[in-house]
């Protein structure tokens, strides 16, 4: 068995009692990478020299008496989270040479709990996509079946965890980019409430929707990793100043009396019948634990995808205006004046999906169309949020599938952006409403994992984790692994 499959408490105990060294854990990580990266291709950049030097230093110092559970664990970081001195490309040619001069707040927080950064993980360029095929470097593959996509945009983050290349990883979720790849790769992925985790140092895609969150092998690890990264940050003006509870203590296994809402829109047309079957089976498990469920309606669900693509693309077109080739990034070599420098640097540096969304967003924000598209979408966003508020008056959680299907084949949807966007139908409303949600494995269909999505009310991460954990404790789905390890 790989050292990276040992439960977190046991691993910590072995480190504290000197049965195990940080260096050995890290070896295990790079050994798995050497064995599996050729087929999985999860990493854009490895941090091997610095990570090994850090491990040597940590092992020489010994485990401090106040070390937490995350001490010494090998972690992978999505490549849109800036890491000082470590290449951060956003999977874009534009940032092929970008060496950040500061750490994202989440990276600073990881340094405080002394995880070891193994490397930077592949993604769709600037987090725009749901398959990793939009990476301008290479497509990451699903460890369960390498002909299939790992999902996206945090596809590298999910694949590396599923392939046992890291203990856990960080991703970011704008419209499902943590939960959907977690579902496709058979692991746990949590999108926190908007504002719970600082976005400082997360390269902005759609600022009103982006959230950083954990991807892990099980729910308990997700609780511990969330604990490490959550909290108010003065460097993020949308950071929420709220009390952070002890998430692990919420994992009681007790969900007696829990009221579950199952939106009919999440189990209707477009949802694969076999996926639906797994979700219904999961609800049965939860019922057996004393929960009750009822069908509800989130009537504006059908408008969520259109709303999202207008809002996210508009925000992206504004956010990506900063990539002008002046202060950082790859500058064109053939500009005769400043305007040409902007045009050529951007045109040479951005891939097709990024250009498409910048175009859509610029159009939606342009004079004469702002009210019809951007303002309209913001108004519909209010209606979508109200759907959730209404349901949470009566129910504790909302449950459905994370994605309508299992992971599709590489190349299958690449020529139809609209079809690709519709994969996000179950995850997007959650970002628009700003509420937290987790994806946990709930079975396999034709050898590919299915994700169960558990959605909670604003800042109800503890409830979401408690339900996910109770489900996990009474099923073996999370123990299934694509590689024997």
């Amino acid at each position, binding site marked *: 068995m790989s050292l990276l499959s040992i439960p977190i408490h046991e691993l910590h105990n072995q480190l504290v009692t000197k049965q195990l060294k940080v260096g050995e854990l890290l070896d295990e990580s790079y050994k798995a990478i050497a064995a599996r990266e050729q087929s999985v291709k999860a990493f854009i950049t490895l941090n091997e020299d610095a990570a090994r030097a850090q491990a040597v230093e940590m092992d020489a110092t010994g485990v401090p008496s106040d070390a937490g559970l995350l001490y010494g664990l090998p972690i992978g970081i999505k490549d849109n989270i800036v890491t000082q001195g470590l290449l951060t490309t956003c999977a874009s040619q534009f940032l092929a040479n970008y060496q950040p001069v500061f750490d994202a707040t989440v990276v600073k927080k990881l340094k405080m709990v002394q995880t070891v950064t193994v490397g930077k993980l592949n993604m769709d360029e600037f987090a725009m996509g749901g398959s990793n095929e939009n990476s301008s470097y290479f497509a990451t593959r699903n460890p369960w079946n390498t002909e299939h996509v790992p999902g996206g945009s945090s596809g590298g983050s999910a694949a590396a965890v599923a392939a046992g290349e890291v203990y856990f990883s960080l991703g970011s979720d704008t419209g499902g980019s943590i939960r959907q790849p977690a579902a496709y790769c058979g692991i746990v992925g949590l999108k926190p409430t908007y504002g719970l985790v600082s976005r400082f140092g997360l390269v902005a895609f759609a600022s009103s929707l982006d959230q950083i969150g954990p991807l892990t092998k099980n729910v308990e690890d997700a609780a511990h990793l969330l604990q490490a990264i959550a909290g108010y940050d003065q460097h993020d003006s949308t950071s929420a100043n709220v009390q952070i509870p002890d998430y692990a203590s919420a994992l009681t296994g007790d969900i007696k009396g829990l009221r579950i809402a199952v939106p009919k829109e999440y189990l209707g047309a477009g949802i694969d019948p076999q996926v639906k079957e797994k979700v219904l089976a999961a609800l049965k498990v939860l019922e057996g634990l004393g929960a009750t469920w009822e069908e509800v309606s989130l009537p504006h669900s059908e408008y969520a995808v259109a709303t999202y693509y207008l809002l996210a693309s508009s925000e992206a077109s504004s956010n990506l205006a900063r990539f002008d080739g002046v202060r950082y990034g790859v500058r064109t070599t053939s500009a005769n004046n400043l305007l040409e420098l902007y045009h050529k640097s951007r045109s040479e540096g951005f891939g097709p999906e990024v250009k498409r969304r910048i175009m859509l967003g610029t159009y939606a924000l342009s004079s004469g169309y702002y009210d019809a598209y951007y303002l309209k979408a913001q108004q519909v*966003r209010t209606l979508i949020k109200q759907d959730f508020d209404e349901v949470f008056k009566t129910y504790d959680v909302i449950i459905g599938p994370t994605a309508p299907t299992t992971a599709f084949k590489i190349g299958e949807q690449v020529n139809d952006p609209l079809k690709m966007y519709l994969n996000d139908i179950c995850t997007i409303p959650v970002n628009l409403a700003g509420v937290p949600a987790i994806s946990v494995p709930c079975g396999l269909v034709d050898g590919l994992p299915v994700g169960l999505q558990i959605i909670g009310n604003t800042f109800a991460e503890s409830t979401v984790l408690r339900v996910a954990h109770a489900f996990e404790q009474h099923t073996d789905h999370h123990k299934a692994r694509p590689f024997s390890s």
Partner: protein
Amino acid sequence: MSITLKDVEHVAKLARLDLSADEKTLFTDQLNAILKYAEQLNALDTSNVAPTTHVLPLVNVMRDDLPHESLPVDQVMLNAPDEEEGHFKVPAVIE
């Protein structure tokens, strides 16, 4: 509403993008498909609905305007494609 090739050229200019002839045709088709899909939002009467910019009740975050330590200039210039004496260098703006 439908987008023409001319609209795409105009928007590309606003977005500071140079598009090839193929890209212009492709984006005209694809943006039309996406915007047609988005037109379903018009089925909703939102005349009395306030827009949501952020889900949290946000207020402006202010701090005292005091000098504090900044990144050293050599760090700031580390990623500069071109620089001279601590300044970002670009081609001539005025002929």
